[in-house]
């Protein structure tokens, strides 16, 4: 081992400068030998940020669920009560809307996974490297078209005089128009790239050799895919589902634009903040998706999906 004061020479003859005992050097030495210090250095900034900015804000909001608001002026009164929570738990409106929102989120997730799997598989395993690059670009580009513009485009497509109806007219079929179906279609469209990417990344990590070994042992393509590949990419699939499920659960803009007269949980929260000026009730309603999402995240933690995001 070279000591700090030796001048060493490299193979090409140039000299390596002597190591000086500066403050930076001492800092490095300290950090190298104290992993805890390194850890705190790394964690302090982001953790402080996230806790102070996000957690405090979130808790502050959720606490208002236990307060009241003066209905005429909209002023919040710190008057501890369970009223809002009770309203949300017992009101049939909230049951209906929650089930509807869950249904939409699940439908969107299933559709997105079904659409993402073939294209991700093609990109990861079948396409040439050049094609792969083109496909990734092609999949990522729509992310840059504004969310609002895409939803309005779908409004145009789904309209009674839109493209879809125009295509269906010769067959005499009536298009879905605006409503829950339209919402599901649009949301599936919006989140598709977010679902494709983790699955694609997961598939890339599956070595070809495994699949070849499997086919060498006599399995048909479909069996190989089903028995070898699928279990390996399950965490990646679940990671993709987190996006589509969570994003759909709280969305209210898409429903507003293509959902016709329907409401989802996000709308209830939004109208309670905007229309009703009732932040406590909005916070109480907000507890529903928060609890659902927490539940979902905890359930999938085990599968390692969170590492695949």
């Amino acid at each position, binding site marked *: 081992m*070279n000591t*700090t004061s030796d001048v060493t020479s490299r193979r090409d003859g140039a000299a390596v400068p002597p190591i000086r005992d500066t403050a*930076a050097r001492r800092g*490095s030495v300290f*950090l190298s030998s104290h992993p805890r210090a*390194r850890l705190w250095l790394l*964690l302090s*900034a982001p953790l402080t*940020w*996230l*806790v102070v*900015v*996000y957690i405090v*804000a*979130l808790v502050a909001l959720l606490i208002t669920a236990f307060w009241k608001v003066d209905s005429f002026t909209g002023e919040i009164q710190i008057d501890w009560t369970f009223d809002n929570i009770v309203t949300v738990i017992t009101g049939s409106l909230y049951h209906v809307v929650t089930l509807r929102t869950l249904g939409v989120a699940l439908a969107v997730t299933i559709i997105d996974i079904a659409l993402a799997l*073939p*294209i991700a598989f*093609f990109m990861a395993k*079948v396409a040439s*490297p050049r094609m792969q*690059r083109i*496909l*990734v*670009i092609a*999949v*990522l*580009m*729509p992310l*840059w*078209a*504004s*969310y*609002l*513009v*895409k939803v*309005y*485009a779908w409004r145009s*497509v789904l*309209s009674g*005089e839109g*493209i879809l109806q125009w295509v269906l007219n010769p067959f005499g079929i009536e298009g879905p128009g605006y409503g829950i179906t339209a919402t599901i279609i649009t949301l599936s469209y919006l989140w*598709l*790239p977010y679902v494709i990417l983790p699955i694609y990344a997961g598939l890339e990590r599956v070595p*070809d050799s495994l*699949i070849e070994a499997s*086919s060498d042992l006599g399995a*048909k393509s479909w069996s190989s895919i089903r028995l070898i590949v699928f279990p390996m990419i399950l965490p990646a699939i679940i990671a993709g589902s987190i996006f589509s499920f*969570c994003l759909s659960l*709280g969305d*209210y*803009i898409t429903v507003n634009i293509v959902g016709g007269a329907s409401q989802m*949980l996000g709308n209830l*929260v939004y109208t309670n903040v905007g229309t009703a000026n009732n*932040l406590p009730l909005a916070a109480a309603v*907000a507890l529903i*998706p*928060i609890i659902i*999402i927490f539940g979902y*995240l905890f359930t999938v933690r085990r599968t390692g999906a969170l590492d695949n*995001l």
Partner: protein
Amino acid sequence: MKLSRVSRGVLASATGVVLFLIYVPLMVVLVNSFSTSQSLSWPPPGFTLEWWGKAFQSQGALEAVGTSVQVGIIATVVALVLGTAISFALQRFEFFGRDAVSLLVILPIALPGIITGIALNNFFRTILGVPLSIWTVVIAHATFCVVTVFNNVIARLRRMGTSLEEASADLGAGVWTTFRLITFPQLRSALFAGGLLAFALSFDEIIVTTLTAGVGVTPLQIFILDNMFRPAQAPIVSVIAVVMILVSIVPIWVAQRLAGNEKVVR
């Protein structure tokens, strides 16, 4: 890999169909940007280049793009720093509460935007008592952009291993030097990809932005939201969308090139 002809064919056509479905609405947007109709109705009654001309001259649109770019860049930089730090902490160390921290990073993006939005709005205005401004938007964006950087960097760190860094330390390099010369170059493409996604996220975000932007701060999405109210401006919005898509090809392609140089062999 060996797949039967049929399987390949099926996959290729499935891919084609999905891509077609992805691009149909974008084609509609493109056509709408040339349409003479001001209310996005289909089929377009006529074609005109009027909106393209107006869009590039629209003061409001250009300012909005500028604001969004500013917010995006600052938020991305902050997210890069925080995300990288957290990735290192979580991948290289074992500590109590590790799972909680990784959950914490995901939360801002997992919880619905409306909740994050009103929580932050409430936080800034009533708890801190600061007026909303461009900085409140930046803070909000940075908070949920951390996760995209985190995902990319931690995936890369897992693949990287620590052997090169240890070798560098053995050879006498300090912590910063090692990071600068050994770790960072390996992370570059992951940082670029994560940063790009973070920027895209910040650029496209609408809900949290409306709730945290001060008066007079008009990022692009708010401009679009405001102008979808105005029939004469609606086609301009279509133009903006088309331009954004086309412009985005460049950074995505660059990200792909960078990633391609370090591909894992199949």
